[in-house]
């Protein structure tokens, strides 16, 4: 079984928001970053995967099995970290562990102690006394102590300083040294993904804009820069998003070679960052409107 997580035509609607039949897959042994602006549907998707929300349509398979039919077995093999703390704040770290541990068949106190040590967490402090970064580290410690095959995280890096974030990313790289394990994590801080992510899924307004290997995305997409005289109704169609200023334009294309053929040597093509891709895609329409 190659894919550890498969989401097919997943659907959920709220009053002001609809998750539009989204699909993506995460193979075993890789890290997938789930990006999109706030309110794009990242948390909704993760909550549907964890069955905290009830899906209206579609299919979710984890470890090749239906996520509701085999819910308990699947959750035994998943570790989760959410952006907010959901532990009992009045308990100490050690007491909370005492409560969580019996739920998991494969819980290992050895692993727990190992991560507590790595993260320098104080076992006898109460959870509410921890800083935001330490709370996240504690969540991660709890999430990893039953040696999960799939780690699911919702915005684990939001509100953390760069040093803690980089520590977290190192742990993720460590984790997938075992090629049977995968990580799925959402973030709106795309620079986290520029480094470690193998796959990127980009959601916007309840729809998947793209889901592919990060290398393929970064090798194909490009930031094209040139003079505004190059732009007309026809050439403008090549862009996903475009921004004009007094001296020229910058635009995002999803096919660098095509752009090169179209504009020849009159343009400069830069490698985009994931953030560029996100910004131009999200604001692409707005830019287009301001042009008319």
């Amino acid at each position, binding site marked *: 079984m190659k894919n550890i997580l498969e989401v097919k035509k997943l659907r959920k609607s709220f009053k002001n928001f609809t998750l539009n039949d989204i699909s993506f897959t995460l193979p075993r042994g890789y890290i997938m970053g789930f990006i999109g602006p706030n309110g794009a549907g990242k948390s909704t998707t993760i909550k549907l995967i964890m069955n905290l929300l009830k899906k209206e349509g579609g299919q979710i398979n984890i470890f090749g099995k239906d996520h509701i039919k085999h819910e308990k077995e699947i959750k035994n093999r998943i570790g989760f970290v959410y952006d907010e703390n959901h532990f009992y704040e009045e308990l100490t770290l050690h007491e909370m562990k005492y409560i969580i541990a019996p739920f998991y068949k494969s819980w290992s106190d050895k692993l727990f102690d190992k991560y507590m040590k790595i993260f320098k967490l104080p076992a006898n402090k109460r959870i509410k006394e921890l800083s935001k970064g330490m709370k996240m580290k504690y969540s991660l410690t709890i999430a990893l102590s039953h040696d999960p095959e799939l780690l699911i995280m919702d915005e684990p890096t939001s509100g953390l300083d760069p040093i803690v974030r980089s520590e977290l990313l190192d742990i993720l790289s460590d984790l997938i040294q075992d090629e049977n394990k995968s990580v799925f994590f959402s973030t709106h801080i795309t620079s986290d993904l520029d480094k*470690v992510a193998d796959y990127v899924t980009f959601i916007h307004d309840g729809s998947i804009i793209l889901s592919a290997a990060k*290398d393929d995305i970064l090798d194909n997409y490009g930031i094209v820069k040139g003079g505004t005289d190059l732009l007309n109704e026809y050439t403008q169609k090549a862009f996903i998003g475009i921004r004009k200023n007094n001296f020229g334009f910058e635009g995002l294309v999803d096919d660098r070679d095509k752009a090169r053929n179209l504009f020849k040597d009159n343009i400069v093509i830069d490698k985009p960052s994931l953030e560029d891709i996100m910004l131009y895609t999200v604001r692409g329409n707005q830019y287009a409107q301001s042009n008319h």
Partner: protein
Amino acid sequence: MKIIISNSSNEPIYQQIVRQLKEGILKGHLTAGSALPSIRGLAKELHISVITTKRAYEELEKEGFIETAPGRGSFVAVQNRELLRKKGLAIVEEKLAEAVLTAKSLDISCEELSKLLHQLYKEA
């Protein structure tokens, strides 16, 4: 062994790895049969995607520079000197062609170019 990745370079990261490992093999820094870091280990060290290192290794394997034994990892392939030399020549040719193209676009004559080449060869 040294591998340096530039994120701002236009050369894709996997190609940077391929190029540097090839150089290492051709120059003899990496000898036949010596073990390469694992795909996942290298990705972790370099802070890059596993897919990138995997692609680089696949490329090197395709070109016969390395061999991968399932479960044991990747090794520098055993090749005869003749073949290595040929491969080396191909790389030199490719780079010279690039230099020639640039020279032509700048109206630098063949003579001037060979003079430059001799000089560089002596200095190196």
